[in-house]
């Protein structure tokens, strides 16, 4: 697949407060990935994993307290890492659009919904007349299945339900047929029935426009239904990346294994314990040298605490940052089950 967005060694640090007591928060420690044209990639992680900060870093939407460094950031082959704020603003919306978790805070409560979408279009395309824009906005509202779009054009955001607001946000994001849609927990605040509707809507619009989607979520089930590839983040690092099918079939990182075990599956009459991951998310002010997951990992070795593992290529497009994949790691007590010995023979460490 042709690579549309390429990120190499993205690091984002927040200065926390003015006082010297507050250490800097290393929200993203090192992230690299690619997004292909028309592809849907899921970024999964818990709060504090750095998944949202990664997305916001890409489009320059972080506050000034954030320091974003990146070795390589290209959109369609051209570097976008040194764009000015103005150029970034032009890029956002036109080529990269975003949808956030809370549609209420993304909409101006004092402005009619139609006008807000109109403003978004006119900011990037000044050739259209007012009437043409209005027709376009109503068309967009209809496209995201807002009932009575002509009437709704003049409604205020508070007159919409959460699901409808998120549809409006999607309409706005897709208005200019962007190449990439970054959706940051777009359905987390919604009920399952509405989530179902919104995900379907995103899927349909993607089919029509060929937009690539970077779907950031904590919900592995959403990823399973939507994405072809998954990136699992923890402590500001990518722990594992794999095609969705192989990640669910053969997770190759203890964190991913734990996450999957924490999900209660809808099965018949089950009453067994969930495999929870003990402990709490890491402290991002002092990440230490080792694997951020080591303190919570029941397979952790002394080595895991001493140094960060490199990526190991498990299979085509499947990489994992875990020392237990190393050729030198003992075979006993492996988290990877029976497949371990056979798999590990094929594992190759990658250059970081």
């Amino acid at each position, binding site marked *: 697949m042709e690579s549309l967005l390429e990120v190499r060694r993205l690091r984002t640090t927040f200065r926390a407060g003015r006082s010297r007591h507050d250490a800097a928060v290393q929200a993203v420690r090192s992230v690299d990935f690619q997004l292909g044209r028309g592809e849907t990639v899921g970024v999964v992680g*818990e*709060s504090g994993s750095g998944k949202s900060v990664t997305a916001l870093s890409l489009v320059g939407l972080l506050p000034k307290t954030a320091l974003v460094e990146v070795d390589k950031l290209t959109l369609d082959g051209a570097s976008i890492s040194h764009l000015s704020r103005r150029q970034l603003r032009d890029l956002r919306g036109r080529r990269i659009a975003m949808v956030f978790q809370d549609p209420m805070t993304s909409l101006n409560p004092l402005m009619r919904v139609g006008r807000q979408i109109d403003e978004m279009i006119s900011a990037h395309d000044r050739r259209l007349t007012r009437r043409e824009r209005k027709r376009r906005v109503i068309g967009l509202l209809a496209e995201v299945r807002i009932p009575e779009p002509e009437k709704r054009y003049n409604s205020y955001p508070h007159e919409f*339900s959460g*699901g*409808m607001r998120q549809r409006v946000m999607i309409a706005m994001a897709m208005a200019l047929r962007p190449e990439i849609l970054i959706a940051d927990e777009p359905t987390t605040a919604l*009920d*399952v*029935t*509405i*989530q*179902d*509707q919104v*995900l*379907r809507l995103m*899927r*349909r619009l993607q089919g029509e426009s060929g937009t690539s989607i970077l779907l950031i979520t*904590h*919900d*592995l*089930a*959403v990823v*399973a*239904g*939507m994405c072809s590839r998954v990136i699992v983040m923890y402590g500001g690092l990518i722990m594992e990346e794999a095609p*969705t*099918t192989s*990640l*669910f079939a053969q997770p190759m990182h203890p964190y991913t294994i*734990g*996450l*999957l*075990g*924490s*999900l*209660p*599956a*809808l099965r*018949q*009459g*089950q*009453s067994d*314990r*969930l*495999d*929870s*991951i*003990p402990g*709490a*998310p890491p402290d991002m002010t002092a990440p230490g040298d080792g694997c951020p997951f080591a303190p919570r990992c029941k397979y952790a070795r002394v080595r895991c605490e001493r140094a960060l593992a490199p990526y190991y290529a498990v299979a085509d497009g499947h990489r994992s940052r875990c020392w237990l994949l190393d050729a030198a790691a003992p075979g006993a007590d492996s988290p990877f089950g029976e497949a371990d010995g056979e798999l590990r023979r094929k594992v190759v460490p990658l250059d970081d």
Partner: protein
Amino acid sequence: MTSQPPGPILEVENLARHFRSGERRRPIRALDGVSFSVNRGQTFGLVGESGSGKSTCARTIVRLYEPTAGRVTLDGADITRLSQRQLRPLRRKMQMVFQDPYASLNGRMAVRDLVAEPLTVHQPELGRAAVTRRVKEVLDQVGLGEDHMLRYAHEFSGGQRQRIGIARALAINPELVLCDEPISALDVSIQAQIVNLLRDLQRDLGLAYLFIAHDLAMVQHIADHVGVMYLGQLVEKGPTDRVYGNPSHPYTKGLLASIPTPDPRVDLTDRPPAIEGEIPSPINPPSGCRFRTRCPYVRDICAQTAPKFTDLGDGHDVACHLYPAAAKQDDRVE
């Protein structure tokens, strides 16, 4: 769990709670005639979309809201008409765990004082040392240590805060704990910790839970009985394996179908959309069956009369016109 059902610790009959709406005179029927019971040592799960009245139900049961109609019986005693002062001694039997682990703990109080609060109210005779001992004991039960006692809530992670909230609820040995979305604000791996903890506590202490959640998979995992709410009313209730194994109300079916499966081989768009539309306003609910505006099986009768509960066997009740009301007349009132 279909062994000999023990007696109920909590019985809710036709419970309703209406709120005054802003400008118009019509009330918001947030909770509108709900009946179920929670057995000792068991878990009753309450599921439904936001706006279905789940939380209102829990808050009306503990009398944070005064019920508009209906009856709540706690351990055989009708608590609906008691004054707050009369109710106070009975609150020992019934405690609550809240959704937001950040908002539910007073940030100005140390963990010891947070957990000790129910003790100071209900066992004022206890000395300081005895209170501290008991706090230590419950903190230990929820997996926290003595060294956490003098810390403040903001120093803890979400999961740890929720443990503190559970410890506070347990301090006075309640028989029933109402869990109002106790895990929905937590991360996936932490959710599993808390659910496991709640199950362990139930096993060790014989607690009964009213477990409210919108995560249907989690409710299936923890609940013995489950009730599905829609727009202030129950539409289906029964033993968990019956309701999940044989969902009968179109709403339950749709709700279950909208949960994404954690299986990449199942594509989202392979099946038809589960439920169209959104939950209507409780100020002006649809006539007849409240679900009719979104129901794929809607018929004429649905707009005219509200369906009564039909027993499908084994205590599995469904309120839908698809199931002829040949069975018993239920406790439904108009």
